[in-house]
């Protein structure tokens, strides 16, 4: 059964230079206790997708489509109803923990406030829970650490604290937005291990451009390109049998696969290429690709791709 169903989602930002089509039609499902990786280049709309699920985009943004969560269309809820969902039902763990913690408040208090906002616990109980959360994300001597300010934490510990904040109210869905960005390799692996542990029996949307990390955590992987999904498959299928030329290029650009870059640049989201959005960079592009937009086709069970090579 799916926990979150996104249908025909379009997110457009009006700017002076024209409409930025950050997300142009995405259909996606996240099942109960599924961990889905969302992979794509910088600027392809990954974060926007996360933000539109918890509805924290600027008011001027034009959003179309439906996002169903536990029988409710999130896009139709009022701001007050939405506030009850944020943090409690759907929690987002932000990238860049250094700037995502308030420098003038103690880390323990910042975790406690997440609890107080939703569970109506008194201050002391919330604090105890916060220390418990710090312990669960494996911060040593959590009781002491809860009384410290963010600048006294290392980068990895701040990320742990952010995870603790996100998990404090036991949400059903976690949206992790590049939680491993900017961490060095050893710490990155610890955070990945931690995320894997805490997301057990929970659903998670794991947004990243780091395929290595995604394979360790995720059950399925969705590849995003220029505001739409181009391939969706089980994690191992993405590696063994990548179908879309973009996914292949993405894999080939990994350091242990030869470090071959995909030629060209990702397209401007204001002026998308006609036909298949990947055709200007694709080695297999035919005349048809430049005119017609390929549909998402399920090639085998649980493996769909948006490319004319397979139809």
């Amino acid at each position, binding site marked *: 059964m799916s926990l979150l169903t996104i249908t025909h989602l379009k997110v457009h930002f009006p700017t002076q230079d024209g409409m930025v089509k950050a997300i142009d039609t995405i259909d996606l499902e996240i099942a109960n206790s599924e961990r889905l990786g969302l992979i794509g280049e910088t600027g392809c709309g990954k974060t926007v997708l996360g933000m539109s699920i*918890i509805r*924290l985009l600027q008011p001027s943004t034009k959003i179309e489509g439906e996002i169903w969560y536990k029988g409710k269309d999130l896009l139709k809820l009022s701001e007050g109803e939405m*506030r*009850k*969902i*944020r*943090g*409690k039902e759907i*929690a*987002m763990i*932000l990238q*860049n923990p250094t*700037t*995502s*913690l*308030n*420098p*003038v*408040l*103690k880390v323990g208090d*910042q975790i406690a*406030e*997440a609890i107080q*906002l*939703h569970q109506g616990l008194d201050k002391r109980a919330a604090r105890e829970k916060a220390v418990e959360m710090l312990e669960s994300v494996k911060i040593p001597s959590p009781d002491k650490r809860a009384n410290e*300010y963010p600048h006294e934490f290392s980068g990895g510990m701040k990320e742990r604290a*952010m995870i603790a*904040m*996100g998990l*404090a*109210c036991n949400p059903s869905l976690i949206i992790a937005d590049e939680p491993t960005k900017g961490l060095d390799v050893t710490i990155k692996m610890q955070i990945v291990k931690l995320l894997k542990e805490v997301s057990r029996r929970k659903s998670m949307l794991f947004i990243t451009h780091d395929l290595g990390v995604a394979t360790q955590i995720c059950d399925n992987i969705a590849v995003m390109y220029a505001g739409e999904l181009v391939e969706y498959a089980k994690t191992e299928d993405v590696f063994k049998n990548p179908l879309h030329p973009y996914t292949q290029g993405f894999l080939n650009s990994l350091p242990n696969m030869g470090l071959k870059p995909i030629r060209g640049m990702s397209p401007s989201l204001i002026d998308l290429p006609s036909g298949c959005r990947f055709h200007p960079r694709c080695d297999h592009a035919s005349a048809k690709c430049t005119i017609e937009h390929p549909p998402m086709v399920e090639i085998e069970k649980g493996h769909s791709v948006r490319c004319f090579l397979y139809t």
Partner: protein
Amino acid sequence: MIEDTIAFLKGYKNSVIGLVGLGILIFFVVVAIFAPYIAPYDPHEMYKPVRHPNSDHLLGTNHIGQDILSELIYGTRVSLFIAFISSIIASYIGTSLGLIAGYFEKFGFFFMRIVDGFLAIPRLPLIIVIAAFMRPSIWNLIFIFVFFGWPFTARIIRSEVLSLRNRPYVDAVRMLGAGNFYILCRHILPNVIPLVVVQLIMEASHVVLAEASLSFLGLGDPTTKSWGMILHYAFEYPTIFISDLWKWWMLPAGLCITFTILSLTFIGYALEDLVNPRLRREIL
């Protein structure tokens, strides 16, 4: 918070200017609080008028025979009371409105045009006009200073909030389901408090000067003893400048005003250096 305060005090201790300022201010505050015990006479009691300084009256007496030293000591009370009450109220109003104006963009835009209007008016002349129309009393003075004091704070706080509200940690708490009011009070307010304190000190020094000016011009409350009123009566005395009278009648009051403002300015500078890391440097 305690560690922060200690670090703050340590930083403050290194600032010579700040310590001098604080020393002078504490002196005046002590004088104001213990005025009845320090002053040798009741400032309203009348003795022989226009006496030169002598062992009975250290600074002589004024034109109606009141002891000038006692007047000065009681005047400290009035001047500091007006300064702190009106700057505290003005900062409170300015901070609240600045927070709201900075956080809610549309409201803020219109609101700031009102503030611009207030700031465009030259403050002292208008205060004089309004004070002339209102019955002179301490509370009317405080009202006037608050009325003209809050826009400065509001403007500074708003510009800080504009940058604070887009910080990622504000997004982060919003993602946890926090509402606007909660974010303003819990996350933005603590970040602007240091600014508010600096602004409050600066405002207090403005008010000391403005109060003295108004009283000097005869727009203060004639029944209260303030430094400005002492200057006012002294200035009206016919032979004040051709005799030696000004040396003990006017000069001490003028020095009191100067030193109060100086101490507040010094404290303001020292705090500003501590609060704003970009200005942080070796102080004197």
